[in-house]
């Protein structure tokens, strides 16, 4: 493979065998990753977008040598992950959302020092970097705090420092801002952007199911679903795919069975719905604006009341809906919504 590529996969697949007693209705295999081809050049901040179970974490586990592929091949920093995992590990680091690594009795800086030793970093360099990075993420005043006293956000900041401390060529960020408050997420996103922006030799692979995070950070984004990559392009180009269509967001009082209500309406290409603050939020991708009146009529017939209507620019969420047929958080247990059938 070309040395300019930080990551490359060819037909990469992972199938999990399910034990007989755990398998439902004769399903003995789960295809977590289905022939994925990917090329990520050095210096890119690349995003993987997809709902829970899309295969993002499986892909990261393979690329970080935690999991063996069952088919295809993958290279990280030019090294085959299956054949030479130890060599791959010299070039990478990982930060995952919701990590609870480290030892509670050690302080923040002691934990970070310990992890730096697993990379052979000398004590002086490690201490200097720890000091600098803690300052950047705003955790310098907690350096001497035992980590069992840290809040979730502080702990995740420490995890960030752990990931960047080893100055990896390729950094994997797996849902790094999961469950964090807005301010902490903002700080960490700024840090990631800055880190890659100032270092053209570094590459970041970010997985997220926060659309705005991918939109804000990533040079290119791949949309994953059911173990496959459905689309891969810059966020701008992905959104341009929907330029012909019209996107509306409607908020209505709770209505029953939205799928049944809208699935046969002419001009509705895709729609998704979610319960938000006791109301139903409906997102429509329409062929044109003529499709809107029948929607309003249908809402009226179902005794729903329109609270707000907004015509808006397409987002990555809309791109996802147009490709998959449902919203990113639907169907994974994180939202009480169902999907509109693609037509």
């Amino acid at each position: 493979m070309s040395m300019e590529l930080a990551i490359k996969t060819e037909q990469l697949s992972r199938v999990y065998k399910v034990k007989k007693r755990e398998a439902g209705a004769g399903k003995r295999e789960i295809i977590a990753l289905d022939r994925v081809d990917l090329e990520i050049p050095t210096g890119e901040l690349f995003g993987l977008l997809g709902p829970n179970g899309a295969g993002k974490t499986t892909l990261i586990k393979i690329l970080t040598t935690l999991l063996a592929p069952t088919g295809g091949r993958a290279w990280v920093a030019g090294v085959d992950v299956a054949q030479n995992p130890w060599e791959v590990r010299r070039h990478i680091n990982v930060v995952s959302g919701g990590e609870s690594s480290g030892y509670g009795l050690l302080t923040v800086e002691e934990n970070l020092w310990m992890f730096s030793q697993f990379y052979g970093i000398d004590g002086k360099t490690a201490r200097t970097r720890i000091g600098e990075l803690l300052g950047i993420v705003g955790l310098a005043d907690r350096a001497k705090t035992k980590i069992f006293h840290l809040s979730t956000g502080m702990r995740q900041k420490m995890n960030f420092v752990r990931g960047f401390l080893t100055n990896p060529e390729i950094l994997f960020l797996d849902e790094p801002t999961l469950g964090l408050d807005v301010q902490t997420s903002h700080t960490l996103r700024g840090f990631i952007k800055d880190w890659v922006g100032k270092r053209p030799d570094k590459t970041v692979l970010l997985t997220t199911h926060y659309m705005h995070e991918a939109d804000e950070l990533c040079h290119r984004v791949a949309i994953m679903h059911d173990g496959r990559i459905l689309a891969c392009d810059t966020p701008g180009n992905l959104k341009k795919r929907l330029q012909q269509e019209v996107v509306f967001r409607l908020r209505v009082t709770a209505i029953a069975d939205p799928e049944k209500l809208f699935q046969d309406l002419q001009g509705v290409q895709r729609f998704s719905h979610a319960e938000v603050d006791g109301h139903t939020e409906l997102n429509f991708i329409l062929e044109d604006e003529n499709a809107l009146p029948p929607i309003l009529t249908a809402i009226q017939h179902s005794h729903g009341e329109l609270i707000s209507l907004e015509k808006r620019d397409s987002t990555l969420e809309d791109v996802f809906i147009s490709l998959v047929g449902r919203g990113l958080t639907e169907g994974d247990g994180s939202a009480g919504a169902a999907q509109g059938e693609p037509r």
Partner: protein
Amino acid sequence: MSSPSRWEIFRRTVMGRAYPRVVGMQRERSWLFFDTLLPLLQVSAFVFIYRAIQAPPEFTGFVVLGGAMTAYWLNVLWSMAAQFYWEKETGNLELYIIAPTSLMAILLGMAIGGMVGTTVRAAAVITLGLLIFRIEVSIVSVPQLLGVFLLTLLALYGLGMLFSSLFLLYGRQASHLSNLLQEPVFLVSGFYFPVRALGFIPALGASVIPITLGLDAMRQLLFPTMMAQFRFLDVRIELGALAVLSIGFLWLARRALSYMEALSRREGRLTIRGQ
């Protein structure tokens, strides 16, 4: 900056992983009660039994020595062998795996940290036991005693490293192994009596647990007169056997870790939690 050599990474990993164990002991002082006074209570029970049946006073020494060595066995079972289960649950294990270091270095760090901490506890049990029960020892050879002790620890922690490879693949199931081994080994290794009392063949079988030979040899070197009639094997043979066990367990641990890591990666079990 040149990248560090494998040896440098190995050396630093050992130090790094030993650190939490050494420091943790200083920061969590509850061990003074749980790991010193509670074992002494158990030791006292055996001491009073021996005294009640008017056993020779050396038997009190056998029991105190055995009581001190229980700390190592428990440390090996729960803080070495089963440790990967907890590391998997907290997410540390995957960070160990993705680092360019070896799991042997991680385990060696755990072992050294564990030995330091456990030696302090064992020494406290021995000191208190000697003082409270007024035990007299007559050391035959300090270098031999030291050699037996160190080889026992090396072989014992090598065995712990071997067991730990099982926890890469299995989770909670493997912890049953630790449960299974805890109490029976107290019996078959002769923690509270000379192992020869079990008979030669059972004692030979129990010698696969290094502490069996270690305890017998240390008793011979501390209580030579009484052990003359209870010794299992000659001290020099036991020293040789401990050396063989040390090398064997460390070699097997290295092979098993490598095999289990590859197998766990194939089966996707390295990062499964709560299994």
